[in-house]
């Protein structure tokens, strides 16, 4: 089992095993960038076609909650980075504490996102469900909200996956699965978590900050 501290049979040594895992996760993250990339491309082209509608629609998003959520996510990246660091140093309790904080912040993010979704719902901004908008460009405003829900929705699915992943890491850490010599799963979970954060870093200005001035 590659999950144990023992080097898996296909590798020569632990260093080879770990550099392989590092490269593997980065390539996976590159595929994630392009997975979201298709959405960013669709967003860019649609925004260029309907700049006024996107300006109007973006002002209908909840910038306060969006900004707070960005802060929450950035902080969760800090706790995750500290958790990986603690694991590397063999500080098991600190590592568990930081990972628990990460999970808590992740859940907070989802909760805030949920409140936002609820407010969007009561504001009749959910396409295909209850969208109605009386101002100009209603049809294109709806397209913005379609992209908004699509992009944040796919991002939230990634958040949920990340939370589960870190949860498993907590369980493994409490069973003393990691040591300064073996911490690859935590490292990889951290990388995934940070990438989901990076995606949000771009979603935030594109969805919330269009034409606020």
């Amino acid at each position, binding site marked *: 089992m590659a999950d144990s501290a023992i080097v898996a049979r296909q590798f020569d040594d632990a260093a080879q095993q770990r550099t392989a895992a590092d490269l593997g996760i980065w390539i996976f993250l590159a595929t994630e960038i392009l997975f979201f990339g298709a959405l960013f491309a669709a967003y860019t082209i649609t925004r260029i076609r*309907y700049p*006024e*509608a996107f300006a109007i629609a973006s002002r209908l998003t909840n910038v306060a909650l969006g900004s707070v959520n960005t802060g929450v996510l950035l902080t969760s990246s800090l706790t995750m980075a500290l958790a990986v660091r603690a694991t590397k140093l063999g500080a098991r309790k600190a590592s568990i504490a930081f990972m628990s904080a990460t999970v808590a912040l992740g859940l907070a993010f989802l909760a805030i996102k949920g409140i936002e979704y609820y407010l969007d719902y009561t504001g009749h901004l959910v396409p295909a469900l209850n969208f109605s908008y009386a101002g*100009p*460009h209603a*049809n294109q405003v709806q397209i913005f909200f379609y992209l908004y829900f699509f992009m944040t929705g796919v991002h939230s699915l990634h958040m949920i996956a990340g939370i589960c992943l870190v949860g498993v890491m907590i369980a493994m850490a409490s069973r003393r699965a990691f040591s300064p010599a073996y911490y690859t799963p935590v490292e990889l979970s951290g990388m995934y978590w940070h990438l989901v954060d990076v995606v949000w870093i771009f979603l935030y200005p594109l969805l919330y900050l269009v034409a606020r001035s």
Partner: protein
Amino acid sequence: MWNVPLFPDRASSLAARVDVLFFVWLALATLVALAVAVLIVFFSIKYRRGSSANRATAPEAVRARRDRRIELAWIFVPLSLFFVMFAWAAELYYEHAAPPGDAIDVYVVGKQWMWKLEHAGGQREIDELHVPAGRPIRLVMTSEDVIHDFFMPVFRIKQDVLPGRYTILWFNATKAGDYHVFCSQYCGTDHSRMIGHVVVMAPAAFEAWLARGNGAQTMATRGAERFRQYGCSGCHGANASVHAPKLEGLFGKPVQLEGGGTVTADERYIHDSVMLPKKEVVAGYAPIMPSFQGQIAEEDLLDIVEYIKSLHDAREGTVR
């Protein structure tokens, strides 16, 4: 049964030029394929296992230098050839995309699974297009549902026909006859039955055909009716109280847009102004026009487009 054509008829000014391009490619491709085949066969025989051919190779350094020269040759010789062929094909493509100013407009609407065509004089056709030889014809095309494609092999041209948008195709037919029109973009169940004819006629015969055509009203007359029917005249009419842009003499002129920039008032602009009025607002006017997306059939809109074009003609002919 034994009528087996191996090469299509040629019936437009462009077709001959596309064919020349094709034959040059064919010659190049045959040359390369033959060269590869001949070399493979020649080497296969000469250097078959057990043959007594001389296999002694030059020293490594000499060989490496020679190999590099060969490599560079077969990078740069094809590359320069490709640039020439690219430029040639691109030039022809540009001409294919740029209709001459004096072309006769015919309007095409594709729908699953038929072609509806309309001449400016109001003559309507289904799956048939009558055109005079020797005059450039410009097709303004749109679709009511999915993407179709108007393909006329004898003219060597085709163009996708998109919903919600106008695309343009033009040709100058040179030879009278009855030729195929195919829908060549897959469009659903009866895609292969979305075919028709383009009938190229001598100009006189075409005039006669037009005269006995079914056009009780010209497209512009019909367009004027639609213009009232959809309420356009309420704002754009002569004695409307609303501040709306004047349409007389608009067509073909540059339009100043709100927020800077100009566009030419072509078919696309008129179409988009009706469907997406907020997209390109004329400078100095409030964006108050409602969108007609989903409320007006593409055919009716084409009538209105032709009507607005005719306003242009009327002004230059009479008002001045």
